[in-house]
C-alpha cells in the first residue's frame, strides 16, 4: 500500500519567508487515503511559483462573494496549466452544512448540464438567504467559471440582490482566516472529493465521461470579458470573526499546516506552498487563522482531507497513517458527505474507508461519488437557527415547487392505478391514512419560479408506495425543494427628479402612485421621495402565498404594502377512516387510483368497482370528499393580480404650469427669503419693508414702503 511515487507525485518544495522555513508535502490523496488507481492524465508538475497563483490563472468559485466589485480576479489569458480553484465560505455554527448544501446544489444543478457552451456561472443566494442561516445571509453567488456551460441558472433571477445585500467593504486586515489550499496534481478526477464535494459522472461536449468538477481544456484561452463578468471578493462577516476560506487547486491533495504565532495570536496556517503569493484586496498571506486547533481540525475533516497536528510530512502509506496518533482522517457519513468529524488514534480503524479498504475497492463510494441525495432535507439543516419568520413550516412538512408539467406528473402519480402500488398499500395497511393525496397539505399556484434547487424525489406521504425496485424513492418525481420560506427580491429603484423645481413638484400639485406587482397601487408622497431614490423590495412568503413590498427612500424604510402572489388551489382529500375500515373488514380488491378517486375498496359491488361511488348510488360507504376553494388572502385576489404587470410602475401625476417664464417675469414667483434689493433683478415685492438710515421725511419713508410692498423693479 505504498504509494507509487512515479504515479502519485510527492513533491517537496521549500521556500523561506520572513525567516520561517516551511516545508510542504504534496501527495495525492482522497478521503484521507492515497489514490489507488491509475491516473490517466499525464502529470506535468513543477514546484515552481509560476505554476501557481498569481502567476498562473486563477479560477474562482466562491461562496460569499460580492458582485458590486469592479475588479476581477485577473485571468491573463494563455494556457491554463494549473487552474486554481477556491471555495470561500463564511463560517457558521452549522457551516459544514454549507458544504452539504453546495454539494447537492452542485450535483443537482450542474451534473446534467456541464460542458455545454461557454462559461459556467452559478449564482445562488436567496435559496439560502431565508433559511435562517446567518452565515448564509450574505452569500451571494457561486462562480464556477471554468465549466463549459452557458446556461443561465440563477444568473438573472438573483440580480436583484446586488444592491441590497452586498454592502460591506471587503477587508482582510482584521479578519481571522483559514485557508486550506489543495495543491494541484494534474488529474481531473479527484478535486470534488478532495474538497468534500461528491462528484458524479459528467459528460463533456464530446460525450466523454469525466468525473471532475470541471476543467478547461489545456489550450483554452480566456478572454477576460467572457469569464468573470463580475468578479467577487469573498464576503466576510464582521460580527462572526471566524472566516474560513478554502482554496483548492484543481490538481491537488497536498495538505499541510504549520503552527506559529503572528501578532500575538495563535495562528494555524494551512499553508499552501505558495500561499504567500496569494493577495486578496491588497492583503497578502490570507491563509491565517486563529480559530483554534479544534476548529482547524474540523475544517480539515469537513473538506475530507487527511491532516496531522504534527510537524513535517504526512506519511505516505496507509499503515503509517493508521498507526500515527497525530494523524487524523475524516469521517464520511453514509450519504457520502463530510460533516467535519474525524477519527484519530486507533479510532481511525473504525473508519469505513479503512475497514472497507476503499483504496482497493474499485466500487468504493468515493470513486463513484455520492449516490443519492434524496435523503437530504434542507429544511432540517440549521433548525437551531430557525427563528421568527424563518422555518415556519419546516418542522413536519415537505415543500416543493413544481412546474405545470411536474404537477401533472404528481397528479398522475397520486391517481396511479398501478396494481402493485395498491397492493402495497393494502399489504401495509398498518399505516392508517396512508393515502398519499391526504399528505398534500396545500397547493398554491405561483406565477413566479424562484429557482429552487432540484431534488429527485418529491416526498408525498410515507414511503408506503415506494417501488420495490427503488425503495428509497417516493414519487420518483423530481421537483424543486422549497428551502426558504421567505424570499426577498429587488424590484428596482427610481431617482425622483423634480419637474418644475418648485412647489409644483409637491402635493397637492404633484403626486406619485406606484403600482406594485401583486399589491396594487400605493401613493408615495412627493414631499418624501422627490430628489431621492425610491427602492422597491418584495418579500415573498412562500408558505402563505403573501408578499409584502417594502418601499425605501434613500435606503430607509418608508412604506410597506402587502399582497398575494400565490393562489391557494383546490386539494381534494378523502376520509380515510372509511377507507381503512373497509379494508380492514376484508377488502381484497382495489380498483381506481390511490389518490382522491379511490373507489370500490371494500365491497363486491360491481358498480363501485366499475363506475365508482356515483354509479353505486351510495355503495358500502360514502367517500367523504372535502374540497378547498380558491382563497384570496389579503386584499388582492391572487389570480387576478397575477395577470397584471410583474414590475413596478411608478406614475407621476402633476399639474401643468400655464404661466411659464412670462408669468414669472411679469408677476414674479412666490418666494420667501431675505435679500439685499440690489442683488436681485426684475420685479421685487417685499413684505413689511423696513427703511432706515435714510434722510427722508416720514411721508417719503411711508411712500417707499408702499412702493416696496406693491412691487418695484430692480
Amino acid at each position, binding site marked *: 500500500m505504498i504509494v507509487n511515487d512515479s504515479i502519485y507525485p510527492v513533491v517537496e518544495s521549500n521556500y523561506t519567508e520572513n525567516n520561517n522555513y516551511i516545508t510542504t508535502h504534496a501527495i495525492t490523496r482522497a478521503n484521507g487515503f492515497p489514490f489507488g488507481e491509475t491516473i490517466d492524465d499525464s502529470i506535468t508538475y513543477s514546484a515552481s511559483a509560476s505554476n501557481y497563483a498569481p502567476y498562473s490563472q486563477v479560477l474562482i468559485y466562491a461562496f460569499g462573494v460580492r458582485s458590486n466589485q469592479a475588479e476581477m480576479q485577473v485571468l491573463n489569458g494563455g494556457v491554463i496549466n494549473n487552474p486554481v480553484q477556491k471555495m470561500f465560505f463564511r463560517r457558521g455554527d452549522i457551516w459544514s452544512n454549507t458544504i452539504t448544501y453546495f454539494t447537492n446544489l452542485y450535483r443537482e444543478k450542474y451534473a446534467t448540464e456541464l460542458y455545454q457552451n461557454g462559461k459556467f456561472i452559478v449564482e445562488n443566494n436567496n435559496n439560502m438567504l431565508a433559511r435562517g442561516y446567518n452565515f448564509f445571509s450574505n452569500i451571494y453567488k457561486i462562480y464556477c467559471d471554468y465549466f463549459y456551460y452557458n446556461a443561465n441558472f440563477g444568473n*438573472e433571477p438573483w440580480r*436583484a440582490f446586488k444592491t441590497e445585500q452586498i454592502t460591506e467593504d471587503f477587508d482582510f486586515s482584521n479578519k481571522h482566516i483559514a485557508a486550506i489550499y489543495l495543491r494541484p496534481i494534474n488529474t481531473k478526477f479527484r478535486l470534488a472529493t478532495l474538497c468534500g464535494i461528491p462528484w458524479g459522472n459528467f459528460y463533456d461536449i464530446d460525450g466523454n465521461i469525466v468525473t471532475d468538477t470541471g476543467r478547461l481544456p489545456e489550450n483554452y484561452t480566456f478572454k477576460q470579458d467572457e469569464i468573470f463578468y463580475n468578479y467577487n471578493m469573498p464576503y466576510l462577516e464582521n460580527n462572526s470573526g471566524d472566516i474560513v476560506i478554502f482554496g483548492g487547486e484543481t490538481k491537488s491533495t497536498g495538505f499541510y499546516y504549520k503552527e506559529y504565532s503572528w501578532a500575538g495570536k495563535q495562528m494555524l496556517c494551512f499553508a499552501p506552498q505558495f500561499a504567500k503569493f496569494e493577495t486578496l484586496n491588497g492583503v497578502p498571506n490570507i491563509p491565517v487563522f486563529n480559530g483554534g486547533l479544534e476548529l482547524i481540525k474540523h475544517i480539515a475533516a469537513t473538506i475530507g482531507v487527511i491532516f496531522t497536528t504534527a510537524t513535517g510530512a504526512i506519511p505516505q502509506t496507509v499503515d503509517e497513517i493508521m498507526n500515527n496518533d497525530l494523524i487524523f482522517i475524516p469521517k464520511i457519513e453514509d450519504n457520502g458527505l463530510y460533516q467535519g468529524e474525524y477519527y484519530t488514534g486507533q479510532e481511525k480503524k473504525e473508519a469505513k474507508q479503512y475497514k472497507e479498504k476503499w483504496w482497493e475497492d474499485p466500487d468504493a463510494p468515493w470513486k463513484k461519488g455520492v449516490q443519492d441525495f434524496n435523503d437530504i432535507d434542507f429544511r432540517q439543516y440549521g433548525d437551531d437557527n430557525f427563528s421568527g419568520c424563518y422555518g415556519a*413550516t419546516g418542522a413536519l412538512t*415537505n*415543500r416543493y415547487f*413544481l*412546474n*405545470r408539467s411536474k404537477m401533472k406528473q404528481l397528479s398522475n402519480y397520486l391517481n396511479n392505478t398501478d396494481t402493485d402500488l395498491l397492493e402495497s398499500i393494502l399489504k*401495509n395497511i398498518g399505516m392508517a391514512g396512508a393515502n398519499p393525496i391526504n399528505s398534500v*397539505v396545500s*397547493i398554491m399556484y*405561483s*406565477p413566479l*419560479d424562484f429557482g429552487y434547487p432540484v431534488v429527485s424525489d*418529491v*416526498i408525498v406521504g*410515507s*414511503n408506503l408506495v415506494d417501488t*420495490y425496485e427503488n*425503495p*428509497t424513492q417516493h414519487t420518483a418525481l423530481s421537483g424543486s425543494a422549497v428551502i426558504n420560506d421567505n424570499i426577498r427580491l429587488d*424590484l*428596482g*429603484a427610481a431617482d425622483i427628479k423634480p419637474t418644475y423645481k*418648485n*412647489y409644483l413638484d409637491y402635493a397637492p*400639485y404633484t403626486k406619485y402612485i406606484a403600482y406594485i406587482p401583486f399589491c396594487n397601487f400605493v401613493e408615495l408622497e412627493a414631499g418624501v421621495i422627490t430628489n431621492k431614490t425610491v427602492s*422597491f423590495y418584495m418579500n415573498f412568503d412562500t408558505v402563505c402565498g403573501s408578499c409584502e413590498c417594502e418601499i425605501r427612500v434613500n435606503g430607509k424604510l418608508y412604506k410597506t404594502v402587502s399582497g398575494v402572489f*400565490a393562489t391557494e*388551489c383546490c386539494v381534494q382529500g378523502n376520509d380515510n377512516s372509511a377507507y381503512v375500515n373497509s379494508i380492514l373488514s376484508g377488502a381484497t380488491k382495489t380498483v381506481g387510483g390511490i389518490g382522491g378517486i379511490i373507489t370500490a375498496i371494500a365491497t363486491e359491488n360491481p358498480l363501485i368497482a366499475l363506475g365508482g361511488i356515483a354509479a353505486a348510488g351510495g355503495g358500502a360507504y360514502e367517500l367523504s370528499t372535502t374540497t378547498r376553494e380558491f382563497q384570496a388572502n389579503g386584499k388582492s385576489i391572487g389570480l387576478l393580480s397575477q395577470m397584471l404587470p*410583474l*414590475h413596478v410602475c411608478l*406614475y*407621476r*401625476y*402633476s399639474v*401643468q*404650469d400655464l*404661466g411659464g417664464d412670462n408669468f414669472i417675469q411679469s408677476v*414674479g*414667483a*412666490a*418666494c*420667501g427669503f*431675505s435679500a439685499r434689493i440690489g442683488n436681485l433683478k*426684475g*420685479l*421685487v*415685492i*417685499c*413684505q*413689511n*419693508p423696513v*427703511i432706515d438710515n435714510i434722510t*427722508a421725511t416720514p*411721508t*417719503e419713508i411711508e411712500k417707499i414702503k408702499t*412702493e416696496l410692498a406693491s*412691487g418695484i*423693479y430692480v
Partner: protein
Amino acid sequence: MVVKLGSVSGDKRSISRTMTNITTADCQPFQNCDVLQPRIIVNVNMYSPTDTHFTIDDWHRTYEITSAEFMTGQRVLISGKVDVLFTYADVIKNSTQWIIRCSDINNNNVIHSLIPDTLRPIKEHSAAELVQITGDGLEYLAKSGGGYFVTTLGGTSGKFATKPQTGTEQEATN
C-alpha cells in the same frame, strides 16, 4: 437755486432709472413751496416739454414733473412731486428686505421656491408620466410559466423498503 431738468424713462416702479438730456437752470420757488411737492419757476428757454423730472440738489431730491404752466415773462411754472424711488434708489438697493415675490429667474430662492403661488395659472393634474424604474421586475421569474408550491407530509421511513413476500414465501416463513 439750481435745478436740473431732464427726462427719465422706464417704469415708474423701477429703481434703476437715470435722467438724460439734463439742463441746468436757475429756478425760483413759487409762493409757498412744499419740499415734497414743489412748484418752481424757470426760464422758458431752460424747459423742454420732454422733461419729466427735475432735481434740486440743495434739497437732495428728484421730482417727477406733474405739470408745467407757461407764464408771462418767459417763465414756466413747473409743479412736481418727489420721486422717492428715484431719489432714494441707492438706499433702497442697499436695504435688505423680505422678498415675497420676485422675477429673478437666476435666483434659486425664487426658482426653487416651494411656497405655493396662488397667482400662478395651472391646469389640474393634466399630465401623468411614467417614472423610469431600474431593474428587471419579476418577469424573469415568470418566464417558465410559474408553478405550484406543494406542501406535503411524509418522509423516508424505509419501512416498506423491501418487496413484500409472495404468498408462498410468506407461508413458508410462517
